[in-house]
């Protein structure tokens, strides 16, 4: 399959100004600034094929948005190379920009006081879309996102979910081949999230578009992405199947035991694993990943049990563990003093 995004040793360093709290420190910093180099993205490499949906995971400040901005040409990399659809993003060529899109869930580009359809009309001129092609794409988007009732309403009168649907439609009018989505479902209710998820999946299949998506909602990632890339303090720490992520970062599984007619004494079960949940008719044991099968067999042999199942830890927990890991390589550099 064709590779559409190729990133090699991409890095981005920011210079940030630091000062202590308070007015005196603020005045001092007018004269003498203390700056520090922060490596937002540090030698990251990966490739994405056409038609792939890849989840881009990381805690706040891990470097996700910086990476997306470099890939869409808004930021120059400090080092390394990026190639998207054969273009170098930072050159911002028209032929490149007409084939990509960037949606930022926390910012909107639709004009606030007019209906979305007027903003779309401007996009049509910007991207030089022939009228019938534009009409066709718009009809498709209206259909998939259920936009008909909201199209003629001024954007400021729309609910957050409706607005986001319009934002996404507006960002896809030119049928981009590569989509960078930064938190496209942030703040939306479950129904709206599901709707947008289903839409992205459909767009991806229909147009064989590559999607690189960040989200704090693991449901988004689980529903859409087979593959995830995890960055942590600017480093790429995982690139592969979502299911393997669990195995790599968690060492345990949960065994759910349903006792038979006679109640089970939890104290007896404690010898088999750590009891993490105890309810009527159900006890959950945490055991080491490698012991799961053996422990299950022993439980079945030793107790009158009607049902037993082995459950992978929820993806939220896995991610939480990953995010909680200490920063291994990015040792704080000495502050640099710079007179201004």
């Amino acid at each position, binding site marked *: 399959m064709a590779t559409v995004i190729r990133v090699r040793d991409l890095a981005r360093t*920011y210079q940030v100004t630091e000062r202590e709290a308070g007015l005196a420190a603020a005045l001092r910093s007018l004269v003498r600034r203390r700056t520090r180099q922060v490596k937002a993205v540090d030698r990251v490499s990966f490739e994405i094929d056409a038609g792939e949906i890849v989840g881009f995971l990381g805690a706040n400040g891990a470097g996700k*948005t*910086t990476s997306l*901005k470099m890939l*869409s*040409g*808004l*930021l*120059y990399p400090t080092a390394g190379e990026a190639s998207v659809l054969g273009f170098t993003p*930072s050159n*911002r060529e*028209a*032929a490149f*920009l*007409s084939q*990509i*899109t*960037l949606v*930022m869930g926390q*910012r909107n*580009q639709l*004009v*606030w*006081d*007019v209906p979305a359809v*007027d*903003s779309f*009309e*401007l996009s049509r*001129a*910007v*991207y*030089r879309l022939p009228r019938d092609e534009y009409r066709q794409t718009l009809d498709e988007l209206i259909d998939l996102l259920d936009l008909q009732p909201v199209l003629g309403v*001024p954007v400021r009168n729309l609910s957050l979910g409706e607005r986001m649907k319009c934002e996404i439609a507006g960002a896809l009018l030119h049928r981009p081949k590569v989509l960078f989505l930064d938190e496209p479902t942030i703040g939306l209710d479950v129904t709206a999230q599901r709707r947008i998820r289903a839409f992205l999946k459909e767009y991806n299949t229909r147009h064989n578009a590559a999607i690189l998506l960040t989200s704090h909602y693991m449901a988004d990632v689980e529903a859409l992405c087979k593959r995830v890339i995890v960055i942590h303090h600017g480093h790429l720490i995982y690139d592969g199947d979502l299911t393997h992520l669990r195995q790599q970062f968690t060492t345990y599984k949960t065994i759910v035991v349903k006792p038979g007619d006679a109640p089970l004494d939890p104290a007896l079960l404690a010898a088999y694993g750590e009891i993490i949940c105890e309810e009527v008719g159900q006890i959950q044991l945490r055991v080491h990943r490698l012991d799961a099968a053996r422990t299950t067999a022993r439980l079945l042999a030793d107790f009158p049990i009607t049902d037993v199942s082995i459950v992978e830890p929820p993806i939220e927990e896995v991610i939480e563990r990953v995010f909680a890991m200490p920063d291994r390589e990015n040792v704080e550099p000495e502050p640099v003093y710079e007179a201004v």
Partner: protein
Amino acid sequence: MRYLRLIGLSFKMSILNELQYRANFVVQIFQTALELLVALGGLSIVYSHTSDLNGWSASELVVVVGVYFLIGGVINMLIQPSMIRLMEDVHQGTLDFTLLKPVDAQFMVSVREVRLWKLVNMIVGCVLIGVGLARLNASVDAGQALVFLTVLALGLLIVYSFWMMLTTCAFWFTRIENILVIFESMYEAGRYPVRIYPGWLQFTLTFLVPIAFAVTVPAEALLGRLTAETLLGAAGLAALMLITARLFWQRGLRHYSGASA
């Protein structure tokens, strides 16, 4: 052609946006009336003491004030709103969306906003010019009118480039709304022909904040005071400033892509 269409659509959006707030229209009429009162009041006070201000008669100054209103209207309608929007976009990071479009970014940021109600100032300006010329019994032939329109356009290009350069500073300093105040107070000085000011201020208003080319020079064209040198100078300065503004913008953009989070 495509760019004309974009200007049209962009303006349409902005006007649609503005039409939602009709109260602004009334406020604008009130504001223009006030400005007019101050400007003409000032003139009548000055000319109650003298009939000649450094070689300019009262009626000639009415023409200058007319041009001041006309150009001020155009600046406030077409140039300043887009520039203020650009400052906000840089501050809030929403400029990103413009940079993602396959259209020249400088063009796009320059035509995004239009304040329709400023037409009131333009109309008042034209009326004042007419009144001034009538009182002078001056006739303006087609050639003079053409020269007037030419220097008017050159003056606007100069002011646009000047604004563009000021606004581009936002890429480095992020918050520069104060610059606006500087321009506006300088522009008010344009109510009088710059020739009446002392030398250092004349220089400032001609080359540092180029109000002279926006107001005085077009007025001179109408009053038959324009020299060929001034006309060429205006053309040269316009070209120079456009190019400088362009290069400065590109530099600023590189800095923006290099620095923004």
